[in-house]
């Protein structure tokens, strides 16, 4: 049974929201330019408006309909992303998580928001049997992933770097205890919430944006939030669903599958991006907690649709780590999944639609009726 995520979107607090002006309009398709203001132009013709900005070490995209909702949605998403960053980033000295890491205490009273983020990470660890584990932070640091990925030199010419053959230790998620907002973290354990935090952020942001637009009161409209490709939607989708390209490469020569998401969430984990080299060894950001090294299974990209983006995010990452056991593990969850192997072969599970033309959805729908 997948874990559930219960989260509460918060109203923007003073000083937490970054300027909406950071967002840039996004063109959707040829000749269709989304207008942030949503007052005129092609965005109104398309019926949706979209904008994008850098956030949390990746890109954030918000799509809204009706287009005039975009402004309120962006403000709400700004607030949620700022909150999550201040709570759970291990790359910011002023984040709450960094303060916990610096503290000599082993018992901490944390905010409700950080407690939620850690709680979701621990729930994911429990659900996946430890395939995803928030205590990989120390091992990631040992491998050189100790700052925003954009700041990591692909192959440093100096500095210690990791010692080949000696991965960082992974203490294991069971060493972390969370009771309400009381966190017990053994000395030296470094948390990395990367397997769930982006998904949680998308969940929070989509819910907050939807509420900010007043749609929760019964109005008609919909929101899509993507954080680095981890997508959550809220409200009513466009007719037929939100079209989303599922791709495991930025190379347009590699085919993408386009799916339509009518509700909930979709997330993808991949080892094709966020790679770097140390000591001549090619590394990536998805660690196998059992070894402390980057996962080296047969799958390079896994996409999963689930009821929440945190759940989809965790499942996709767990499948990468599970390696040859990924198919069995994902099949047991029943979640629609798409796996791409290093040789490019694709495996579809749990009713994920066949990319070949128009699918016989009726046959697959049974698998989705949980």
């Amino acid at each position, binding site marked *: 049974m997948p874990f559930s995520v219960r989260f509460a979107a918060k109203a923007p607090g003073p000083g937490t929201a970054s300027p909406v002006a950071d967002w840039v309009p996004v063109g959707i398709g040829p000749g269709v330019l989304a207008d942030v203001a949503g007052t005129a132009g092609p965005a109104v013709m*398309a019926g949706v408006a979209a904008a994008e900005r850098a956030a949390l070490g990746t890109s954030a995209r918000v799509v809204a309909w009706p287009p005039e909702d975009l402004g309120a949605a962006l403000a709400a998403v700004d607030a949620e992303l700022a909150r999550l960053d201040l709570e759970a980033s291990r790359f910011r000295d002023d984040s709450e998580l960094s303060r916990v890491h610096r503290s000599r205490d082993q018992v901490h009273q944390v905010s409700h928001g950080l407690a939620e983020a850690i709680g979701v990470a621990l729930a994911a660890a429990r659900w996946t049997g430890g395939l995803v584990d928030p205590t990989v932070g120390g091992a990631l640091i040992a491998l050189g992933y100790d700052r925003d990925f954009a700041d990591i030199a692909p192959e440093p010419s100096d500095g210690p770097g990791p010692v080949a053959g000696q991965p960082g230790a992974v203490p294991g998620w069971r060493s972390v205890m969370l009771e309400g907002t009381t966190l017990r973290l053994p000395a030296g354990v470094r948390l990395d919430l990367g397997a769930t935090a982006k998904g949680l952020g998308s969940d929070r942001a989509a819910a907050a944006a939807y509420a900010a637009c007043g749609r929760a009161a019964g109005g008609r409209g919909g929101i899509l939030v993507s954080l680095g490709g981890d997508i959550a939607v809220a409200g009513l989708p466009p007719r037929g669903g939100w079209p989303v390209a599922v791709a495991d490469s930025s190379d347009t020569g590699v085919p993408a599958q386009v799916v339509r998401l009518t509700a909930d969430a979709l997330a993808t984990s991949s080892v094709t991006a966020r790679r770097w080299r140390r000591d001549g060894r090619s590394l990536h950001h998805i660690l196998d907690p059992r070894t402390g090294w980057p996962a080296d299974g047969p799958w390079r990209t896994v996409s999963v649709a689930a009821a929440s983006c945190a759940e989809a995010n965790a499942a996709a990452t767990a499948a990468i780590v599970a390696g040859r056991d990924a198919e069995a593990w994902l099949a047991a969850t029943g979640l629609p999944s798409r796996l791409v192997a290093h040789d490019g072969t694709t495996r579809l599970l749990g009713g994920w639609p066949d990319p070949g033309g128009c699918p016989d959805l009726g046959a697959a729908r049974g698998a989705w009726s949980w």
Partner: protein
Amino acid sequence: MDEEHQDPAAARTRARGLRRVRRWSNGTAAALIAATALTTGYFARASASATAATAGTAVASGISGVSGVSGASGQPGAAVGARQPCVSVPVATSGGSGVTRQTVIRSCGTGGGGSSSAPVVITTGRPGEGGDN
């Protein structure tokens, strides 16, 4: 017959009968009103559902060539209206951190040279699901 000339016993009997008829009549009227309201509500809901189902089928057939869209959970109403947009190009890419690209697509049945496959529908709603931890 003039009431003034009835004997008292007959008048009391008549009054009791009238009260009984009025009560019965009032109860019947209330029941009729309630039944009418229930029936109206039922048909209103049925009509809305039928409208939504018809619209959903038509949309799905036009966009992705499938026979219906189901299972959208947590949505504020299923009715499809004129303002609900139809988007025929991907609005986002799910490809893992760092993978970003836009892909132009075509609807099923339009043919012709798109760089990707036709859109299909993923439905993840799980009616009645309850969380466990």
